[in-house]
């Protein structure tokens, strides 16, 4: 996973930027953090494709090995016969650096945190592109990423999700007892494999919670 670029505009969006003047000082800090992050982020991921074997009240993978409950995921995967489970992380060094700056230089912690959020999203985008390019058959596409906690897909499946991928051992990704992914800059998501291209737009469009979300993209 090399050469994934951090989008500066995304960093600013996570920092709550609308259209204020950024200023030379902050601009420099953003660049500095983007650079520093390159040195400490160690993106890793793991993916596995599962057949969808039942869709009664939940999406069932491989004859009940793993259940994805809720209406939202049913709808999301309605056009897919199989799906990809993905887990990705930037690793624990990023958390550690952010923790450090929270004590040493809070503004920098804030900016570095935003850079890391932007980077893990970019990493996920890259993973999906690579899957489409390398693993899917002609004419097949991935749906957008749908994560535990989106809509009515319970976040409580997080641990099981990681177990199914053996993510702890393979990429060092775990979930706390309250289902927080650790290291923190990590993503788990399901993408359907569908025959038609339903467009892999931003996660915001797929989420039912945008009304109360401070970070939703402005165009949504």
């Amino acid at each position: 996973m090399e050469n994934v670029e951090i989008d500066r505009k995304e960093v600013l969006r996570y920092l709550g930027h609308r259209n204020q003047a950024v200023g030379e000082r902050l601009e420099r800090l953003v660049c500095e953090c983007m650079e520093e992050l390159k040195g400490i982020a160690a993106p890793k991921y793991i993916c596995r494709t599962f057949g969808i074997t039942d869709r009664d009240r939940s999406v069932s993978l491989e004859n009940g090995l793993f259940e994805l409950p809720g209406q939202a995921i049913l709808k999301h995967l309605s056009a897919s016969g199989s799906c990809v489970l993905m887990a990705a992380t930037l690793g624990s060094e990023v958390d550690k650096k952010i923790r450090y700056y929270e004590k040493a230089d809070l503004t920098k912690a804030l900016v570095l945190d935003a850079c890391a959020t932007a980077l893990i999203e970019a990493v996920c985008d890259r993973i999906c592109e690579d899957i489409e390019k390398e693993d899917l058959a002609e004419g097949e596409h991935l749906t957008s990423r749908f994560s535990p906690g989106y809509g009515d897909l319970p976040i409580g499946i997080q641990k099981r999700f990681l177990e199914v991928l053996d993510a702890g051992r393979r990429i060092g990704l775990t979930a706390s007892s309250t289902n927080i992914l650790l290291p923190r800059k990590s993503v788990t998501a399901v993408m359907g494999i569908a025959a038609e291209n339903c467009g892999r737009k931003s996660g915001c469009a797929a989420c039912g919670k945008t009304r109360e979300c401070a970070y939703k993209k402005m165009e949504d």
Partner: protein
Amino acid sequence: MELRERLKNGFIIFDGAMGTMLQDTGLKAGELPEVLNIRNRDVIIDIHKKYLDAGATVVTTNTFGANELKLKNSGVTVEEAVDAAVANAREAIGAGDGHVALDIGPIGELLKPMGTLSFENAYDIFRRQVVQGVKSGADLILIETMTDLYESKAAILAAKENSDLPVFFTMSFEESGRTFTGCSAEAMVITARGLGVDALGVNCSLGPIEMKPLIDRILELSDVPVMVQPNAGIPVVVNGKTEYRVTPEEFAECMRGFAEKGARVLGGCCGTTDRHIRLLAETLGTMEARTLEKKMGSSVCTPTKVVKIDEVRIIGERINPTGKKLFKEALKKGDLDYIMREAIAQVEAGADILDVNVGLPEIDEEEMMVKVIEELQSIIDVPLQIDSNNPGVIEKALRIYNGKAIVNSVNGEDEILDRVLPLIKKYGAAVVGLTLDSKGIPATAEGRCEIAGKIVKKAESYGIDRSDVYIDCLTLTAAAQQKEVRETLKALEMVKEKLGVKTVLGVSNVSFGLPNRGLLNRTFLTAALTAGLDLPIINPLDKGMLDVINAFKVLWFQDENCEKYVEIYKNTEGEALKKSGPGVHGLAEIIEKGLKEEALGATVKLLENSEPLEVINGYIIPALDLVGDKYEKGDIFLPQLIQSAETVRNAFTAIKEKIAATSSEEVNKGRIVLATVKGDVHDIGKNIVKVLLESYGFEVIDLGKDVPKEAILGAVLEKDVRLVGLSALMTTTVCNMEETIAHLKEHCPGCRVMVGGAVLNESYAESIGADFYGRDAKESVNIANEFFELN
């Protein structure tokens, strides 16, 4: 102890993968293999038998994940799973020759500070496995595939404190040579050796080829038998199936190489089968085992940083309340941030190790020491020196320390040596020995050297290597004992020559009571370094002292090619020019623009002619109000607001110092407790609120993240607090917020609660019983202002 004998004389052959063999029999991804010990025991016994038949002398129980967290919803208890697994292995061995290793893998949740699991909690989880393993009759304990050194320490302690069985220990590394959590092979060897494991090494993640450089490094360093259990190569996913491609022949050939270099315990991990182990056993059968003789040398470490005492290393002395009013205040208030800033400044200035002394009569030293060490090791990676003369404090600190620490100190008194040295041995630390005893400090170098010799001898009698004893020949004050100052230097030389140990010395005492202390300190430091001082304890922020050390390292060929020296001093002229330039901005402008570096100087200057309160009300508050207005109007955004708040905090540092120096009245607009609720580790939002509240003159008691409701109530009652701010970022932790609010309202009805966090909104906040909802950090200041004006 037949196994320990065997470790001394020959090879021990472990089995290969359990998971891979199980998958071949149809285990599905994500199914719990531990349950099969009971539900499908024949399959397990059969796998053990295959490995024994192939030549393994140790079989590993199918208990990798048999801990209470992973088995939670399985319908099987830890005790049942472990007991069945040991029985299965025993049955496979039958009347044959073989040992049963109780397998213990990682818990699967991260420990603090990365996660929410406490060290003692992790210890208890492992203890349950160990206790049952012993009861069921395991022959040894295998702690494996660890990636976190802290979790490893909890597991090793649990094994050693609850059994007499040999402990074999491996961690899993990436090709970078570090584990997922950043632990290096060197840090693993130093720490695990110190904790007294019987064998240590590497397993999983990598194949035997990729492991080679790592094993070389470990064999170079370790005098503890080395263990190697590689995967059969790096996994490749083909058509959704994981494949391992190293053949038994390639595997055995690589393993032969490890054995030739000195590895003693060999086996396989993921992807290896009985075929790999059969060839391995055949290969080792034709070989002689080699004994490792290398010694470790003197070093201390954290998981991510090893400090070898093979050149002058600086111990920072500033985490110590002696003679520091603000530091004492911080300790009494439990203001850990103050202490963290002291730590960060020292590390940035070049400290290699930090001394930690939090002894103050009014506070619970044990509790504070633990808190400070936990906080320090969550943000910085330099090793720590635990500075206390209370054995209880020392033990607590050593237990929760992540890596190998130094203890400061013991002296020549038997009673102290006999109390502290066993702790040094048990936790694998290094120790500072002061050359004094009940009769005081000997006047002569010979007298001090004699005590040093006694300390070293006693340490060795407890099994502590002399490379882990650092002798302090004690600096005397020139103003009082001028004649004896040289004795310290003589003793230093003598101790180095006669005992061959490392030396440590607090330097600045020498100048006490005399003018131009810096000059005397630098001169004495130079003399001490020349006499062979390894570990000066100094204030790293004293540039003159650092200059001496940097120059010394060039002249004594410790800084090869003068690299570090050039790096530090190449811009000396430019720097001087920059620093001497006068500040051009007024304090108000500095705050508005967030020019953090200029705030302190500008404030100090203002305070020359103004009272603290005048500076606050005349400059700081108006500037902050302006910035706050701009933020609320959307003219600036969050990082800019925080930059200004941090700038104000720097200004307040000067103000607090002035207040402490003149004993004038403290500035305090109100006291607020802040915490991120139980289960939540997202701290940054709360920290933003904190810095903003502080910049407006509120006193914030920051309880950190993942805080239980009882602790929040405790702080509220103890410090008589009426406003609490709670933060939660996840829907799953808002329920803990609700419980906390209910708990506070029940036991402290007068207390008000403001809440914030990404998943909250006004009505949600109301529904969980909060009194105020802070949409953003600035809003929380408005709430606090209004609250304390009205109340």
